[in-house]
């Protein structure tokens, strides 16, 4: 069950794995995520599905080494099994034909963005995608994104690839030159916050896909709560996508950092072993 059949290193800390999960491959939709657990002492962590192959019965996940759980997952090799894998979870992305869609992906957020870009394109939209990363080696899935985008703009913080600058600069450039009907953003919380501020100025409807801390992923625990438009919502069952203009990103960032000291302790304990 859940055997890893392919593994690719995108960078030192970012790995793509392809896992056997025939039922999830069949039932997943863009925007859905899974919960994985590695080892009998493992933690349950959510990961957005980056793609699926129904014929082969596999799904792909892109993981960035951050703490103990993601390190354990990244350290698995082809032939190893993921102890537990469950999904698909969350509400799928609502895809319509709207005209021009601006898709903004940052860091590993490009992985979950890919199936959404594909779906928008297939629904008959013009899709302009902006990929943002700190530097060249952290730009991932560029070729795959190009396949489903009318145009791809790469932005790097250090200018080592594409244009030098922040994602919002690329967004402003697109918005200046053409009418954008909808925007979708996936990446670090701080990036999504500024993407949302940018599109709000221009009144462009925007959704952000959130990566919250979760335990069960089915609405049971409420660890993933987020304030949207003044109301508490659960990222796992109400999301993971919400109206980016209404999300309280500051609260969300504080909640994401809620276990920092504990996570550090776990990491030290893990490295000692």
């Amino acid at each position: 069950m859940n055997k890893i059949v392919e593994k690719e290193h995108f960078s030192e800390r970012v790995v793509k794995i392809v896992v056997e999960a025939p039922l999830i491959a069949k039932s997943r939709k863009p925007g859905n995520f899974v919960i994985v657990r590695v080892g009998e002492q493992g933690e349950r962590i959510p990961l957005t599905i980056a793609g699926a192959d129904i014929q082969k019965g596999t799904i792909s996940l892109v993981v960035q080494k951050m703490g103990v759980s993601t390190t354990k997952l990244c350290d698995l090799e082809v032939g190893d099994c993921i102890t537990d894998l469950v999904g698909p979870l969350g509400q799928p992305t609502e895809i319509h034909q709207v005209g021009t869609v601006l898709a903004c992906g940052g860091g590993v957020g490009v992985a979950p963005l890919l199936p959404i870009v594909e779906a928008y394109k297939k629904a008959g939209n013009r899709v302009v995608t902006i990929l943002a990363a700190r530097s060249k080696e952290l730009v991932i899935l560029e070729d795959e994104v190009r396949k489903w985008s009318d145009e791809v703009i790469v932005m790097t913080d250090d200018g080592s690839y594409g244009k030098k600058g922040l994602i919002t600069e690329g967004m402003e450039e697109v918005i200046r030159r053409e009418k954008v009907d909808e925007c979708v953003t996936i990446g670090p919380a701080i990036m999504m916050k500024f993407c949302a501020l940018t599109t709000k100025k221009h009144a462009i409807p925007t959704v952000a896909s959130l990566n919250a801390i979760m335990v069960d992923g089915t609405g049971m625990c409420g660890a993933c709560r987020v304030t949207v438009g003044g109301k508490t919502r659960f990222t796992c069952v109400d999301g993971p996508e919400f109206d980016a203009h209404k999300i309280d990103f500051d609260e969300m960032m504080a909640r994401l950092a809620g276990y920092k000291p504990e996570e550090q302790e776990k990491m030290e304990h893990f490295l000692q072993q």
Partner: protein
Amino acid sequence: MERSDEQIKKERKQPWRVELQKKNKAKDRMAIQRVVMPEVEPEERIKSQRIEVNSQLTKEQVMQEATRCMDCVNPTCMEGCPVSINIPGFIKRIERGEFQEAASVLKETSALPAVCGRVCPQEKQCEAKCFYVEKLNRPAVAIGYLERFAADYERESGTISVPVVAEANGVKVAVVGSGPSGLSFAGDMIKLGYEVTVFEALHEIGGVLKYGIPEFRLPNAVVDVEIENLRMMGVKFVANFIVGQTASLDDLKEAGFKAFYVASGAGLPRFMNIPGENLNGIFSSNEYLTRVNLMGADNVDSDTPVLRGKNVVVVGGGNTAMDSVRTAKRLGAERAMIVYRRSKEEMPARKEEVHHALQEGVEFLTLSNPVEYIAGENGRVSQVKIQKMELGEPDASGRRRPVPIEGSEYLIDASVVVVAVGVSPNPLIPNTVKGLNVSKWGTIEVEQDKMQSSIPELFAGGDIVRGGATVILAMGDGRKAAANMDNYLKKKHQIQARGV
């Protein structure tokens, strides 16, 4: 399967029972004092989440307690049991020292006797209907302790009897959720000869018995043995499978499942929508208990963290609140406090749990309600603003309504807060099944005595129907649903009736 009233009466006249009845005079039976359950000392037990509070009675103690039972002509105790356990039947076997046989009697109607013996509110059910309580106003026969002893005796003896199962009829039924209701249903249906598969969303089988109820009340090993027992009877378990998401109900129909029992539980934790409730350090009881009980966050080797605090506030007065506050104590809290808006008398928690919590040093701030949470450093809660309450007129629940006292607010320090004010039904099935009648509270509507929903092949029970109840009521629903689904399927598919 269970016996009819007539059979129970007939059984009472069997020679061994008559002999036993004559062995002791009624007066002598009544002269015996109710047994006292030995407990691990509070200072000792709060050192670990995994030390069970109630320890074991001896053989002599249980045989003497069983002697108290009058073997009534009309065993009213049975009326108090939602799964109709043959109570005198198993108690009288204990009186004779036949503990294995007593366990077999329990398993005729209950899939989880070792669980029920620990977590059932017997004082409100079987024991409340005991002759001693009803006629003598004296402590009931300790039916719960005896049940627990018989189930534990069998488990520890290593020779576990597997109940007789009818010849397989080849009809596949699916169970959604592996909590007490689903397990109880599965046990009955497998006995009737059905091919039963239980689907569970989490990675462990057992539902609330695993993620919710702490090990100091119900050790996981006890639950696992009962699950293993069902597995030996032929029940199949599939973990990491969310019906409605991983595969739809229609997919399962295509795979040959003829009927469904939905026991997906109470999914969504309720919050109070007060300022600051999303600060770090504020948990739902579901999250707090799941991190510790299911994920083992109390153990350093577990990858799952949980926040610990010197001062912990738990909001609520039910069993889940008691489980949470006692867990906080075991995670090292110096002050672990219950904040409850009514008085101790109205608390829905079992008396035994409140008693154990008090022994362990839990503080009770009653007639108190949180109105705001105040942040300290890094967006973590540091204080709770509490408003005092007084009791007004009784409300719909029959309990006196708590009324806030204006201007009575004060602050207490707390770096962890657990909100245990109830749960709403899990929306996954109600949201994904077309044509299913759902109440405005999100519970699945069923025909009361049949547990059958607006979709004839879909039955439901437990918290997804009740909104929030006890393990034993959920199990009772499972038994009712099994009996009625069996009738329904027999009619529909003309299955040859094959009794056990």
